[in-house]
């Protein structure tokens, strides 16, 4: 069918399709190709000099080792937390599941730099929270989070929801007969869990691990806040420091470093593919989801434990952040006499940079979300309904900029846009447009996936009916398809907005004066020692994030299952 369906396209359809192909190529293939070329032929001349000097530099390998240590440690922690929680949520009769899932997934939606900042407020000697409770360690003590262990802990907490989400999706698809057959054969519940459920969950678990690995590897916010003060550099922070210290002159060198981190990420993705190909995990029956295991007497203790986890990983750090944002100076204990809104006033009304950052982040995120939805609706149309080999490659290309660490894309964008664009003669470097380009490229797939699942739910004959009524492709897209995938497209737009709004990795490397994002301003407040301002700004971003997440619950019932990660 595919071949002839592609052949059956003509005129306007083909123009639209090729337009999308070119766009995706510009967004994903062009930057990566440019990066690889810079590694091989720095500045345009073929040479192995830069590659050699970077690879023989001990700092490079120290950063690689640190990256691997924190990434693997963080992934391991995330897998332990995420899979235990997923088993409880998906398999047992625990109560208040929706509220719990919302709270547990929340750390994933909060910016990593905010998470890092929040945790720093809880543990250090200047912690407003600990000082309020009189538990702060003596002044001069080093904050224990400024270490590899600290980075591992926070990466684990940040990405545990990723493992949780993939595993829960897998558990949901598990037919209940498989479990019941095991129970009927005389196996106890734990035996069934160990011998039937967990082996069948290998694919989602491996996928979750891979996702977690790649995300941790590319994470900039956490090692930037916790590692740089301890001079513990991982690859993204090394790239940042090199670039910040010496400017664009050092581009070839950071291009090699970016290629290196990209290669490590690809290795992780390929390893996942190989592991899943070795065995057949296909589930052959289809059926309704399994009936939950009854926890009986264990229900209350389990629930207390799970909510205790939420308290520890969500409530405590956010309380710490809030406390810091309300004190006049870092280290001052919070009480009725010291509490103040001055920090909020300062970041919202006085500080020019943070005022601009609000406008920039809102504008960039909203524009990226809008553009991505406009691209995703026709793109998903071709990907889901006109399958062909070329379109599968196109889908892969769209995934790439998000699958690879953000620094890779950022460095590639600098290489592309440093010189003025051919034809137009204008340079995007040092403008807000280079950040915009990266947002659209990187987050395209976040908008595309919900829209694609919206298409999967749609009866194709609805489109065919419009087609025989004489409507061309564009008209069908606007009058029939768009209204029907609108809820999924809205969810996709919100995901893009939230992610872009909380983003730091890309903008930390690409921002210029006047074009700061909120992430950049929080980062520079913290680096400049203004933790109270950083905390106030971070609290504001958390409030915006939370409000937008809650607003989705208004139309969540119209969405395909699994589109909103924070909804059970």
């Amino acid at each position, binding site marked *: 069918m595919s071949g002839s369906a592609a052949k*059956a396209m*003509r005129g306007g359809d083909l123009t639209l399709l090729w337009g999308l192909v070119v766009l995706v190529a510009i967004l994903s293939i062009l930057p990566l190709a440019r990066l690889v070329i810079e590694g091989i032929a720095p500045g345009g001349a073929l040479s192995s000099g830069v590659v050699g000097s970077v690879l023989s530099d001990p700092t490079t390998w120290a950063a690689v080792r640190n990256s691997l240590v924190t990434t693997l440690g963080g992934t391991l922690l995330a897998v332990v937390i995420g899979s235990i929680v997923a088993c409880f949520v998906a398999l047992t009769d625990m109560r208040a599941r929706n509220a719990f899932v919302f709270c547990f997934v929340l750390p994933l939606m909060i910016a990593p730099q905010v998470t890092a900042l929040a945790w720093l407020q809880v543990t250090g000697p200047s912690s407003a929270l600990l000082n309020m409770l009189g538990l702060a360690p003596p002044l001069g003590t080093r904050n224990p989070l400024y270490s590899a262990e600290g980075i591992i802990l926070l990466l684990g907490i940040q990405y545990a929801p990723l493992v949780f989400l993939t595993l829960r999706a897998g558990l949901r698809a598990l037919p209940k007969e498989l479990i019941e057959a095991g129970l009927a054969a005389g196996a106890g519940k734990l035996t069934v869990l160990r011998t039937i459920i967990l082996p069948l969950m290998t694919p989602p678990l491996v996928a979750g691990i891979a996702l977690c690995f790649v995300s941790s590897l590319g994470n900039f916010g956490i090692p930037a806040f916790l590692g740089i003060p301890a001079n513990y550099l991982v690859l993204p922070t090394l790239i940042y420091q090199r670039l910040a210290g010496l400017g664009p002159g050092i581009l070839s060198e950071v291009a090699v470093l970016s290629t290196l981190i990209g290669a490590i990420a690809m290795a992780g993705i390929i390893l996942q593919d190989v592991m899943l190909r070795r065995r057949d995990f296909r589930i052959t029956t289809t059926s309704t989801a399994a009936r939950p295991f009854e926890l009986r007497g264990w229900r209350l203790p389990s629930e207390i434990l799970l909510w205790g986890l939420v308290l520890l990983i969500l409530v405590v750090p956010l309380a710490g952040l809030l406390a810091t944002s309300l004190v006049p100076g870092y280290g001052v204990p919070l009480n009725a006499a010291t509490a103040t809104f001055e920090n909020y006033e300062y970041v919202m009304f006085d500080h020019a940079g943070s005022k601009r950052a609000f406008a920039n982040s809102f504008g960039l995120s909203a524009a990226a979300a809008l553009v991505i939805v406009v691209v995703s609706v026709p793109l998903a149309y071709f990907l889901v309904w006109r399958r062909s080999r070329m379109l599968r490659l196109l889908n892969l290309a769209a995934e790439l900029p998000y699958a690879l660490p953000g620094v890779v894309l950022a460095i590639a964008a600098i290489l592309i846009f440093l010189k003025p664009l051919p034809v137009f003669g204008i340079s995007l470097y040092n403008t807000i447009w280079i950040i915009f380009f990266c947002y659209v490229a990187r987050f395209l797939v976040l908008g595309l996936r919900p829209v694609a699942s919206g298409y999967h739910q749609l009866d194709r*004959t*609805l489109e*065919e*009916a419009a*087609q025989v*009524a*004489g409507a061309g492709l564009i008209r069908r897209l606007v009058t029939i398809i768009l209204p*029907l995938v609108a809820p999924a497209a809205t969810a996709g737009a919100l995901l893009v907005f939230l992610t872009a709004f909380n983003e730091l990795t890309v903008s930390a490397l690409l921002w210029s004066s006047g074009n700061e994002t909120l992430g950049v301003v929080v980062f520079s407040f913290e680096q400049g020692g203004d933790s109270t301002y950083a905390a106030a700004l971070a609290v504001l971003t958390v409030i915006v994030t939370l409000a937008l997440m809650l607003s989705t619950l208004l139309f969540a019932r119209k969405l395909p299952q699994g589109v909103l990660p924070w909804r059970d």
Partner: protein
Amino acid sequence: MARLTIDRVSKNFGNYRALDAVSLEVRDGEFLAVLGPSGCGKTTLLRQVAGFDQIDDGEIRIGDTVVSGTRQHVPPEHRRVGIVFQSYALWPHMSVFDNVAYGLKVAGVKDPERTRRVREALALVGLETFAERRPGLLSGGQRQRVALARCLVTEPSLVLLDEPLANLDVHLRAAMEDEFARFHERTATTMIYITHDQAEAMALADRIAVMDRGRLLQLATPSDLFRQPANETVARFIGEGMVLPAEVAAADSEGRCRGRIHGLELSLRASPLQKAGHAKVCLRARDLAIAGPGEPGLAAHIVRTVYQGGFFRLEASLVRAPDITVHLEVPEPFHHGPGDVVDIAVHDGWVLPAETESSSQ
């Protein structure tokens, strides 16, 4: 309204041959049913006529225009065909009125003509008062009618119906069958009706095309299909025909011939061209009866009797050929049961044309 010509059309899905050199011609204003078991290629045929796929070989013409060929392909939106889908495919985000008006809007028909034509189409299916409703609030039969109105409002040259009654319950089916028949009478549109239900096809169609495994087996009027099936598959598929081996003499010009089935001499219908020799004969249940006193018949063991209200359905295997089972209806009272031997008289039968001939049908 237009003639539809399907000329040796083939369609492959990978290695699977979904349509194998299918040829048929639908006359202007004709109601043609395409009948076959699921997977026979009937829906694929409809999708080729609508233009959703590109054919691999052959040609489809609407009127004198080639719409599908190996080198050209008119996309569905330019074919002016109407379709009623099995799922109805009503757009849930539009009112009944907007659903019906869509095709006119696309064609650039302006108000007040547009509203007038939508109202007319809705009146035709008896849904004038439902114009402002959402499709989700309608019953199955009403949705069916909206789909019909939507498809007819643009006055398509050809209407394709893909198992339109499959999703309705039994009572509604009979009513909708009547409605389709009346509808076709009034509009005289050329209609192609896909179905797996032979009673539906017989009741509605001017002619029926029987398909199996991607091939057209026979195209004939319902009566010819029943009385003169072209081959064994059609004979068995339509009306539960029984196919028995026979020896036949050459047919006369009236299409009658003498024949012998397992020693029973009888008169059969056949093509005037039928030659003497071995042949297969199609028998219908209504051609069989328990032989009267002194009447010749085929001796058979009763295998099963099923009471069906006023009569029994009787299944019996021939004494001389136990692997051949026949079935017939016997009126009450009937006092034999399984194991008993009865004589079965054969009053009529149709000599199936030799297979080589049937493939050219």
